């Protein structure tokens, strides 16, 4: 079976982010999107620890421990950047000012419920960070994830079995097999990887998917 690579997925997400958008890229896979933002668009990255106008990673040796992203990795600040405190930063998110955020996920339901903070395992140490604020704050929430778990189960589900992060928040799902839109009438396939049919995608997913 063909699969989109991680870079292809990131490029596909990047293509859907409009010029001038304010965007927050979550930890992990979504970070890759930054490498694929179209050069002819100016997109402003937000990091919830208090920076708008985040730039790429610094050159080796130029790291500044006071200039990091939400993943605590060193970053840079572009001309036009601004710093602010945590209450103001989350006001930007909760207040609906971000155009888009891109998040990883354990599961997404057909209604757009997101589970990405907790496996629910009894011995897991829970940690939530900014996940819940991001999931409900941005105008569009894009999820990037593998379509199937390592054991072949669909991460797209009728109802989340993992603890949810936020309800009915996801707009689009970008996987290694397809791009899906969450609509009031259920999931709709926007793109499918070459060689995979819509019925086969739906069968692998275990949920209905329209075209």
């Amino acid at each position: 079976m063909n699969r989109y690579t991680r870079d292809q997925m990131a490029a596909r997400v990047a293509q859907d982010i409009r010029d001038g958008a304010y965007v927050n890229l979550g930890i992990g896979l979504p970070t890759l999107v930054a490498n694929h933002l179209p050069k002819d668009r100016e997109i402003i990255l937000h990091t919830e620890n208090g920076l708008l106008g985040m730039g790429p990673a610094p050159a080796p040796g130029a790291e500044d421990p006071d200039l990091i992203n939400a993943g605590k990795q060193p970053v840079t600040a572009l001309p036009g950047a601004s710093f602010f405190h945590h209450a103001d930063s989350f006001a930007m998110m909760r207040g609906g000012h971000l155009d888009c955020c891109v998040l990883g996920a354990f599961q997404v339901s057909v209604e757009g419920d997101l589970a990405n903070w907790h496996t629910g395992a009894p011995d897991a140490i829970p940690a939530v960070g900014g996940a819940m604020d991001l999931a409900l704050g941005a105008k569009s929430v894009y999820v990037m994830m593998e379509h199937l778990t390592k054991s072949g189960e669909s991460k797209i589900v009728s109802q989340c079995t993992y603890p949810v992060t936020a309800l009915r928040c996801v707009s689009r799902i970008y996987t290694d097999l397809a791009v899906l839109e969450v609509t009031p009438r259920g999931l709709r396939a926007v793109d499918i990887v070459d060689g995979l049919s819509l019925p086969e995608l739906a069968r692998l997913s275990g949920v209905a998917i329209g075209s």
Partner: protein
Amino acid sequence: MIDKTVATVAEAIADIHDGATVMIGGFGTAGMPSELIDALIAQGARELTIVNNNAGNGDVGLALLLEAKRVRKIICSFPRQTDSWHFDALYRKGEIELELVPQGNLAERIRAAGAGIGAFYTPTGYGTLLAEGKETREIDGRQYVLEHPIRADFALVKALAGDRWGNLVYRKTARNFGPIMASAARCTIAQVQRIVPLGALDPEAVVTPGIFVHRVVEVVVEAANAGTAPAPGTAT
């Protein structure tokens, strides 16, 4: 005359009592007031409730306070990190209480304490495990959870510079929780890289007005040592 400067970190934190609630600024190690925490460890206060975004990194600052078993409870958003081994061990042994709060609610609850708000309705967390048992309400077709302020006896924050009135400016993303924690504690103690003369800070650019700050202590930082290197890849 107002002079909030104190000579040493030991003096600055001398009156933190057993059982106190202490807010500690920082997001990971950026903005963490490590020297104040070290002084608090040496001072010996026990049974503390700590409010911080995380639960300590590596073997510095807050992580060492945990290791020294001075903390009864921690209120934070992201305890589990690749280098949070001291917290992890205490938690698994049941030797520390954890109140997990979504990061935006944590920030807003701290801000509410400083701003005299009795409680507020937030959309964050609605329908999740972290809102279980909390009052909810629909307002204009959207669902909200009622959250209450988090107040503290002491706040320990790190800033770039301060003056004798307690005005503070921060540095880049080390600002994070400092300004809101400063507003939410009965006694706010700031460690700064330099104390500057009154009037040296641009009044348009002061981030924490001195009204929120009670003590300022200068901590001389070697250039090579201006912060602890972050642990790349550890999560928010």
